[in-house]
């Protein structure tokens, strides 16, 4: 079996630039910050949402409400993957009615996580609008879901892995693509 092939897609500087672009795009999409709420998906989406919120706050001198969503209990695949060892916290900042919620996640792949997040958000209230913002779009959707804001598009194959590393959890900022089969070799 061929060794997996790891390459860096974004280094720390590129990741931080991507987040700056995403922060600007979010403010533009929401026509300002008045009704904006950022909700990160556990775990790395929460860190990314936090960083984007800080960027917007520094730039606009406002406070951006943010929350965290753990979608484990809303997954449709408990049967196939079994329970996740430990479920993270879900925290929604106040009433979502009339708000523009931007869901932040690290990687958009099949779309099932986002589907679960939309279901879970609906149980917390009725935002005026929900948008999706992801750092990496790796394609291969299984549901009709697209992101409004994407940091970087990375075409991948199903066996590949995209690892998003963030300083807070992993000690460094980096996005790696791990190819199941090295380039040029047909599976």
């Amino acid at each position, binding site marked *: 079996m061929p060794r997996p092939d790891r390459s860096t897609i974004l280094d720390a500087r590129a990741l931080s630039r991507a987040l700056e672009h995403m922060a600007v795009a979010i403010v533009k999409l929401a026509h300002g910050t008045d009704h904006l709420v950022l909700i990160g998906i556990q775990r790395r989406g929460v860190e990314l949402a936090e960083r984007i919120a800080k960027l917007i706050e520094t730039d606009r001198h406002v406070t951006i409400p943010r929350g965290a969503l*753990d979608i*484990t*209990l*809303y*997954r449709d*695949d*408990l*049967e*196939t*993957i*079994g*329970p996740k*060892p*430990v*479920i*993270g*916290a*879900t925290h929604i900042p106040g009433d979502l009615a009339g708000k523009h919620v931007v869901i932040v996640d690290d990687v958009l*792949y*099949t779309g*099932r*996580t986002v589907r679960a997040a939309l*279901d*879970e958000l609906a*149980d*917390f*209230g009725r935002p005026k609008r929900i948008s999706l913002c992801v750092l990496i779009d790796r394609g291969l959707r299984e549901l009709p879901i697209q992101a409004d804001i994407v940091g970087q598009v990375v075409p991948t194959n199903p066996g590949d892995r995209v690892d998003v590393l963030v300083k807070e959890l992993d000690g460094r900022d980096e996005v790696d693509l791990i190819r199941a089969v090295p380039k040029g070799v047909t599976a």
Partner: protein
Amino acid sequence: MTVGLGKDLVGLAALSPEQITLILDTAEPFKDVSERPIKKVPALRGKTIVNLFFEDSTRTRISFEFAEKRLSADTVNVTSSGSSVSKGETLVDTAKNLEAMRIDMVVMRHYSSGAAEFLGNRIRSNVINAGDGKHEHPTQALLDLLTLRDKFGRIAGLKVCLVGDVLHSRVARSNIWGLTKLGAAVAVCGPRSLLPRGVEALGVTVFEHVEDAIQWCDVLNVLRLQLERMEGGFIPSLREYYRVFGVTVERLEKAAREITIMHPGPMNRGVEIDSRVADGPHSVILDQVTNGVAVRMAVLYLLAGGKPELADAAKRGAAPD
């Protein structure tokens, strides 16, 4: 790395410290679910759960039912009176008939020790023991552990004394297993007639006098005097029991430190516990009830997803997003 629970939850005697900790950790996010505007998550949507109760229960049955409903499972309650059980059907026949209607889990309370394990070995559905005779009541001990962990931040090193009717108490047995496995020091205290012979072999200290227990412990778990299981002769009278073993404000005031008070319910006020203690500032009795729903949600969730054939399917592919 992955710790699972297997098919059934029969008791804490069979669980490792890691498995017990997994249940407690999984219970944490489920506490929040009960505080949400919509107290429901779809994790067990489409699962059918039968609550099969051969003995009376209010708290445990309702707590399980809330846990099941908040996970979106469909539930049916079967009690021995008013069902074919009262016509003489055996336990296995009852369960096999239920299984023929395609159920996924059975939560069972039974008056015979060992009934849960017996049933679990004979049906495909997951079996959760909601109390079997004098054997175990694992979810009660788990909710006690969760309540202690909330209050003290740890279990290891705590000194916990179970006071009263240890002989008839499945709660006591499950608590002894759970507490000792997680590193707490456990003692029992009660009249000799209500302590099982050889209880020291479970690794517990025995106190003859409740005053000594109070000097020693951080936590008193006051057991219910199970009057319905006593055919007489265990204690001279309820008044005498209260006079000698009752957990009263006067006795607790002599303690060197504040003592946390637990009781699995239902309480016999004025028999094993003074009302002023039960309702006092150091009582966590209602926290126990709140935590019961979260712990049961965790157990249901872990068992529902932990079927061996599913683990195999997961190994064959279908990697998570």
